[in-house]
């Protein structure tokens, strides 16, 4: 019966305004949530467990503020919640994050790891394939569907369409939106989550070789030209050719 880990990350709500103060973003006023794709990862992990048995542990790397999203994951239905952290950590690069997560995943004895396609803050999509490599496991990224009968089979985009891929052995699967409907927490889940204990594990991470120099608002676009009425489309078509040179 598979031991399943799902990675969840605490990020600003995607509706939040991201303010920049000096040369860093100021997140003091944002609402924090589970990164949206991680919700699909939770759902897929729970479906895996329902089909094959075993247990699902939600794991995050972050300071104690992240306990809230672990409890949110518990309310949705995961069995255990774990957090890996070391107070000496700050701005970690992908190498440091993956190294630390891999220690926690190994300690948990996981056989399958589900994660989001990208985190809403980094937008990177590096963590799933990166930890798979370090674990020596298979990985399939950006899946839109999964089935668990007779082994793990997933659907992911391929050139010209999509590929149905079977995965044997341990694997890291990163989840896109796809067709799954994510379940919402129910009253019993919310009650259980209140009492749930976060299992905190420590790990080591190498020094980061990537450091943040500055954060800034996106470059402001010069005000565009605005026209009234459908007939102006003719003028716009000309501008696309002669001014923008894009057609």
């Amino acid at each position, binding site marked *: 019966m598979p031991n399943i880990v799902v990675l969840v990350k605490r990020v600003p709500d995607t509706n939040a305004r991201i303010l920049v103060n000096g040369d860093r973003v100021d997140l003091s006023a944002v609402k924090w949530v589970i990164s949206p794709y991680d919700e699909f990862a939770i759902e897929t992990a729970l479906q895996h467990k329902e089909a094959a048995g075993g247990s699902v542990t939600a794991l995050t790397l972050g300071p104690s503020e992240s306990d809230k999203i672990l409890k949110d994951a518990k309310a949705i239905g995961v069995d255990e919640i774990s957090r890996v952290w070391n107070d000496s950590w700050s701005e970690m690069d992908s190498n440091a994050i993956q190294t630390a997560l891999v220690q926690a995943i190994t300690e948990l004895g996981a056989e399958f790891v589900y994660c989001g396609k990208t985190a*809403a803050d980094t937008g990177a999509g590096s963590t799933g394939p990166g930890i798979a490599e370090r674990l020596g496991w298979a990985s*399939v990224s950006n899946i839109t569907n999964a089935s668990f009968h007779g082994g793990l089979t997933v659907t992911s985009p*391929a050139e010209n369409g999509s*590929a149905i891929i079977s995965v044997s052995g341990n694997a890291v699967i990163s989840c896109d939106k796809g067709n799954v409907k994510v379940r919402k927490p129910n009253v019993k889940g919310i009650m259980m989550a209140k009492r749930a204990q976060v299992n905190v594990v420590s790990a080591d991470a190498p020094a980061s070789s990537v450091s943040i120099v500055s954060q800034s608002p996106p470059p402001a676009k010069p005000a565009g030209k605005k026209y009234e009425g459908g007939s102006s489309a003719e003028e716009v078509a000309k501008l696309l050719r002669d001014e923008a040179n894009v057609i």
Partner: protein
Amino acid sequence: MMSESIIIAEISRGAIAPVTAELVSAAIALGTTPTVVVPCMDTSTADGAGYEGVARTIAIKGACFENYDASSWAAAIDAASPSGIIIAAATPQSKDVAARVAAKRNLAIVQDVVAIDGRNLTSPIYSGKAMQTVAISGDAAISIRANVFPAASAGTANVSVVDQSGDVATAVQEIIARASTRLDVAEANIIISGGRGMGNPANFSHLEKIADVLGAAVGASRAAVDTWDEIPHSMQVGQTGKTVNPNLYIAVGISGAIQHLAGMRSSKYIVAVNKDADAPIFSHADYGIVATWEETLPVLESALSAMMS
């Protein structure tokens, strides 16, 4: 001594994709001497990977490159590549394989780079709501967004062949070809997208006609995808859809919600057609047309057809 970089060539439909030439410019902007590696089954693919400023092209010939399998691709590319800064295109597949190669070498990876200044790299964060500049020290892996760096001029490729495959960890059972032969939004240089304002899915045929004239892909907002079964999620642009970076993005009947902008705001030129003059999309449009699509699209189509013929 100049430091080295390894460019993982981007392959599309069995040939070198144009973005590869942009990766060469990025490598030069980093002050590195690039080697281009070409994962392939047929080494002739690498003949198209010659550029000015590139001394060496390595065709990595391996059976594992038949279908995409992250683990075997990373193993073969890692084994056949020298050390240095790894540079790939910021496409879903190349970001994925670059992340694995980086992890294999215990390197950090910086994805979606849109500007390079010495060893400072800038990428969007928070879905483009902010930009972040980081400094890398030593080797790292980086992926580069398309349409940002100029394309290096073509040159003759000096190809050496390395036979190198990897153990395939996943098995492709079946490839389901997209029903439409239309370009995917993730691959297109021009995209025309429709939102809930299109009224019903049948009206997307008006967008398709313009797409045919321009060789464009057709995209959609989440409201369109969620409301109409006929509009598949593969067309969705935005936070929970695809992130696109085309030269031209035409948004029709799309309000311009923050989550839609997250997927397309970095497009070079944005045209908006919306009947509501206050729609937020207009603050991001280079060219805005305040009108219904019913009045606008026929005019646009005939103007573009006349220009393209």
